[in-house]
């Protein structure tokens, strides 16, 4: 059990360091309080955490489990069930290509291929320098503008491989996106 305690005390130590220094945990606390620390608020709380931190790591999951009185494995199970949540930090910029049906039959896969080849990054992965993540989604509901992709959360429509590569290049040139974590369109939501 000494090993076990080691792991948990590591997590606890990291967490208390963060709680003292990182204001974003206060926002998370407010969301948890809104759900009265009830277990059915778990998904909303995970959304809030991912919006704040960009991804869900072990100390954060550990914190949420403790606060909502949930088993660790349950929190991990929920966080990994839904595609929207990620346990790994994303790149500074994201290119999210839609492969819904309309985009697929209009050549969305060629956009993925082009970005993959130019930046040597597989779908779902981030470039080694941490600059660019290439992600795939199933339909963002903008089918009549197919094929589409989201560049740092901004929708690009009627794309082809060339225009998509131009958008990626522009995005990387422009430095940090406006939104602090700029991962996903949900960032627009006021909470």
């Amino acid at each position, binding site marked *: 059990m000494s090993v*076990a305690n080691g792991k948990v005390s590591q997590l606890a130590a990291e967490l208390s360091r963060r709680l003292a220094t990182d204001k974003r945990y206060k926002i998370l606390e407010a969301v948890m309080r809104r759900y009265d620390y009830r277990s059915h608020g778990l998904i909303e709380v995970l959304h809030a955490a991912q919006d704040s931190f960009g991804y869900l790591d072990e100390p954060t999951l550990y914190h949420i489990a403790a606060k909502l009185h949930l*088993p*660790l494995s349950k929190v991990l199970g929920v966080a990994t069930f839904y595609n929207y949540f990620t346990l790994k930090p994303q790149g500074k910029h994201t290119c999210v290509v839609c492969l819904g049906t309309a985009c697929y039959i209009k050549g969305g896969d060629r956009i993925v291929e082009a970005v993959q080849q130019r930046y040597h990054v597989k779908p779902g992965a981030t470039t080694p320098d941490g600059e660019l993540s290439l992600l795939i989604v199933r339909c963002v509901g903008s089918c009549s503008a197919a094929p589409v992709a989201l560049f740092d959360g901004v929708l690009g429509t009627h794309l082809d491989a060339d225009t998509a590569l131009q958008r990626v290049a522009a995005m990387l040139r422009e430095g940090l996106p406006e939104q602090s974590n700029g991962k996903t369109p949900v960032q627009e939501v006021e909470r």
Partner: protein
Amino acid sequence: MARTLTINGQMVSARDEDTILRAAQDAGIHIPVLCHLDGLSDVGACRFCLVEVAGSNRLLPACTTRIQEGMVVQTDTEQLRNYRRHLIELLFAERNHVCAVCVANGNCEMQSLAIQLGMTHSRYDYMFPSLGVDLSHERFGLDHNRCIMCTRCVRACDEIEGAHTLDVFGRGAKARIVTDLGMPWGESPTCTSCGKCVMACPTGALFKQGSTVAEMTRDRSKLNFLKTAREERKWIV
């Protein structure tokens, strides 16, 4: 309240709250199961216990479907036998089930089910996923190659032991049994090392370390005993 229904042409009497499975078992009618274990809640996941119910256009899982007065049930038709054969073949092809080198050989519910269902081979291509084995726990091991995701261990850990160390990570074909935040089992802060998950496992996925094929027996009825004892307070009265 007692109800009467017909299973495979046989008149069967059952209690109002009984499931089709319970009613059949009480009447000595065998229905194949895999994710069901007496003492644990039912999830209707493995689909082996699907039965035909007159008046329903869908097949219904016997483990979760409550009986109704006058219900007419068929448990062993040509169609059901065919579907079950496919299901067991899918299961064998999904991960790396090698009975010859498995500690549960001869004491495996999946292996027995294959025999029962007359499986001579799997028509499906084997998927050969690359999966790990967790031997970090001092007494038990978890071999993902042999896991069929029935979640009996998850339910035993949660419902009987109350530790909820185990749950399911990810989803679909990529789902795996996981301990806590994904740390090695041996480092789990919540596991009580009670071994109920091992008792619950139908295959060789969860096992006692160091045991040979002959030694690897499980007393699965213990779980039901605990559940009954607790719910009915057997030790108080």
